[in-house]
C-alpha cells in the first residue's frame, strides 16, 4: 500500500521560500494567492500489513525522521481502505 506523508512548517515559522514563491505569483498576476507555505511530500510504498503496528511505525518515521519537531509538523495519509479504522 502507499502511505503519504506531508511535512509542513509550523505556523509562525518563517518560510523564506514560500514568501518568494508568493511574490513571484503576485508578479505573474495571481494576486489572489496571498500566502504560500512550502512543505515536503513523501510517498512510502509499505510492504507490511495494514493495522495498528503499521500506523505506529509510520508515525515513528514521520515524527522521528521526516520532520523536525522544532519547526515542522506532519500529516499522514493512509490508503482509503485504512482510513477511519
Amino acid at each position, binding site marked *: 500500500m502507499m502511505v503519504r506523508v506531508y511535512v509542513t512548517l509550523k505556523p509562525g*515559522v*518563517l*518560510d*523564506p*521560500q514560500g514568501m518568494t514563491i508568493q511574490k513571484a505569483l503576485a508578479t505573474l498576476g495571481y494576486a489572489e494567492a496571498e500566502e504560500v507555505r512550502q512543505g515536503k511530500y513523501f510517498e512510502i510504498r509499505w510492504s507490511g500489513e495494514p493495522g495498528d503496528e503499521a500506523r505506529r511505525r509510520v508515525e515513528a518515521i514521520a515524527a522521528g*525522521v521526516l520532520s*523536525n519537531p*522544532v*519547526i515542522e509538523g506532519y500529516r499522514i495519509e493512509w490508503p482509503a481502505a485504512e482510513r477511519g479504522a
Partner: protein
Amino acid sequence: MKAAVVVFPGSNCDHDTQHVLERVAGAEVRMVWHTERDLADPDLVVLPGGFSYGDYLRTGALARFSPVMESIRSFAARGGLVLGICNGFQILQEAGLLPGAMLRNRGLRFICRHVHLRVERADTPFTSEYRAGQVLSLPIAHNEGNFYAAAEELEDLERNRQVILRYSNAAGEATDEANPNGSLRNIAGVTNRAGNVLGMMPHPERASEALLGSEDGFGLFASLVATLARRVEATR
C-alpha cells in the same frame, strides 16, 4: 589536549579542523569515521562543517543517526566538551543536543563571506581567551543558518545565557542590517543548558592563521587548550 574530529560522509571541513587543532593549537587529533563507536577518551569532540549526507531531507537530519552519535551523546552527558561548526552545529541540533533549528537563509542565498560577531561571554570553556563584547571577524559559509527557536525557548536561552555569539556590525551592535541570514536575536552560536556543547555557524578553523587573513578564530581553540590545561592543573 586530545581531540576527536568526527568525519561524516560529506564532511568537508574535517581536514582544515584537524590542521588547526594539530599544527596551530598543538592538540593530539584522532579522526573518527561516523560508523565508529569508540571515541577513545578525548578531551574534545569536534563535528566539522560540510554537507553530511548531501544535506538530504534537512541539514544534519540523517547524520544524527550515525552510530558515532550515541557515543557523542554519552560523552556530552558526562560533561565532555563538544564543538559543532556549521553543519556540525546543525547535526547537534537535529540530535537534540543543542536547541533550535536552522531555516533557509532569509535571502535564499548561500552566503560565503566574513561577518562580524560579538562574543557574548568570555567565561565559557570555548571563549575564555576572548573578552566579553569583543568583536570578531570570521567567515560564514551556509545556506541554512537562519536560527529559529520558539518564543519560550528563545527566552530560556537568553535567561540561561546560552547565546555565545551574535552577528553584529564592526562596532559590536547586533542590528538587523548586520544579520546575514535572518537568525532570531542575531544568534550565531549557542550552548546547551550545561554549557559543555557549543554550536556555531562561523568557521573558526578558516580564520586561525594570519596567512589566511584572520586569526580571530584561533581564540576558540586557544580557549579550549587553556581550559583543559587549567583542569589538569586543578587535579594535581
